[in-house]
């Protein structure tokens, strides 16, 4: 269930979220009093024009930025109250990021890129290897483990990025325009993969996209305009 009235008790609870940027004397309200509840296992797409605050919302939900006001509670933890180092640890444990430009580390192989988040856990070397291989198998790249990002296609790079996002089994995935830099066919493969992660593994996925075709793959679509969630489609309780 996804709710916008601030009355839910979902996995992710956003209450009165404001984000204000100042550019000289100009004050820009990117998000204004936003409420949102997302239950575990939901797949939600956020749509909206450029500058509507989609990426800002994603960054706030992922603990990459701090709100000007309001609270974000994930699995009972108010992440707006965490210190920077606590927030870094929280991100490592609870969030899997998938970016538009893949953002793989170019000097590391696919295997090493996927292994990165696991270096922050207490897993042994053998356990890490097992998990990385499983994640890469899941995204269909078991045979590309030793390849560097420059040796992969855009679609393959994004699949490695998804493997990196899921390898720690995070509480939820945040995908920021994951198909934005891909051709149609690769984009479809990535969306198929996200849908499979949601359906088969019950992953909670929050997707920001411009692409209507990408948004249609999510059961719930929310529209963000001028910092406010103004429209919804799917199973939303308002």
């Amino acid at each position, binding site marked *: 269930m996804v709710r916008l009235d601030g009355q839910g008790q979902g996995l992710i609870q956003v209450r009165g979220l404001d984000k204000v940027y100042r550019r000289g004397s100009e004050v820009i309200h990117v998000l204004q009093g936003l409420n949102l509840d997302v239950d575990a296992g939901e797949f939600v797409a956020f749509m909206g024009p450029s500058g509507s605050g989609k*990426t*800002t919302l994603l*960054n706030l939900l*992922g603990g*990459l*930025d701090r709100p000007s006001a309001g609270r974000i509670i994930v699995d009972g933890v108010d992440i707006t109250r965490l210190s*920077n*180092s606590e927030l*870094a*640890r*929280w*991100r*490592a*444990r609870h969030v899997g*990021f998938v*970016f538009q*430009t893949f*953002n793989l*580390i*170019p*000097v*590391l192989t696919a295997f*090493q890129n996927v292994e*990165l*988040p696991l*270096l*922050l856990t207490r897993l042994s070397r053998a356990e890490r290897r097992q998990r990385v291989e499983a994640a890469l198998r899941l995204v269909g790249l078991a045979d590309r483990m030793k390849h560097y990002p420059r040796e992969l296609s855009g679609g393959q790079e994004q699949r490695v990025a998804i493997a*990196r996002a899921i390898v720690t089994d995070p509480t939820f995935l945040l995908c920021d325009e994951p198909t934005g830099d891909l051709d149609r066919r690769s984009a479809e493969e990535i969306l198929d993969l996200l849908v499979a992660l949601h359906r088969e593994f019950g992953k909670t996925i929050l997707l920001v996209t411009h692409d209507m075709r990408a948004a249609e793959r999510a059961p719930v679509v929310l529209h963000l305009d001028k910092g406010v969630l103004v429209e919804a489609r799917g199973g939303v309780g308002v």
Partner: protein
Amino acid sequence: MGIPVLYTIRSAQVRWVPNLVAVVSIAGTVAVFVSMLALASGFRATLVASGSAQNALVRRAGSTAEVESVLTIEEVRTIQDAPGIARDDQGPQVSPEALVIVARPLRQTGTDANVQLRGVSPRVWAVRPNVRIVAGRAFTPGLPEVIVGKHAARAYQGTELGSTLRFGGTAWKVVGIFDAGGTAFDSEIWCDAVLLNQAFQRPAQIFQSVTVRLVSPDAFSSFKDALTADPRLRVQVDREIDYYRKNSQAVTRMIEILGTLVAFIMGIGAVFAGLNTMYSALSARVREVAVLRALGFGALSVLGAFLLEALLIAAIGGLAGLFLVLPLNGWTTSTINWQTFSHLSFAFRVTPRLAFEGFFFALGIGFLGGLPPAWRAARWPVARALREL
């Protein structure tokens, strides 16, 4: 666990061209730093090695250097009777010595340079057993013959075996070349002390110093006490090794200060080279840093990774600098010894301690050059950095 070292190493490899600039800059600085200290170290070692712990050097009280001292034959005789002096079947092992500075043209430039002419007694071989004839023979007492130290033979014109040198109105035949084990004596010319005084029209029974072989290094105190307590003598007594150590201080201190100053100035340049390299590395990797932070690596991990990269570059620069300077080890050069105003040949001495100092100097440069960019990388707002192209 922090950001893998592999990431740091490979990132440094990828940006090898700008990193090479920093490496060369640090290598040059370390090479200059270590070579200057090796110069000072070689100078000091040459002079200190000239003295033996078992020898005592006696001069007139108040004279800071051997050349300023005057001792009469009566004083020499009194000294010979002091306790603690080693003796053999030829009597006490004592060498009263006279010194004269003469100018000789250098082989390399043809210009005159001062060389120390030391008049010694026939007992000098017992007092300085480390000195040995390597070509020809020893001079004959009473004859105008000289033997030339191996460094002096290389440095000055007309010092070949069999040639004749003119000074003090006398023609001196070069009858031997001696090796004093790389000490200051290798830069000297030796002859009979009595003849030297005659040639330079000095009183026959006057010497500058007396070098004494003691029965053991422990005998020094009793020997010194006996001389300083004797009312017939106004002398100062030093262990020979201490005299030469003091003798080396002025020049070594000057070289060390000059070397450190030059290295410090070059070091500032190298720090800026490091800063430039690491800032450019950082600006090229803004998103990588942001991604690492987004994945959960803390600010300290990022700081550590960038600092490690700077230290890695500095370490390579430091090793390259040491590699550059190592061939200097043992290379002989010469300078004026300010205590004697004569030329002294000595070898650069790159010791393990100097190598460590040079290496840590390089790491210091790396740390100073890497810390500000690393600090900046660690504090970069993640969300904003992710938007950087």
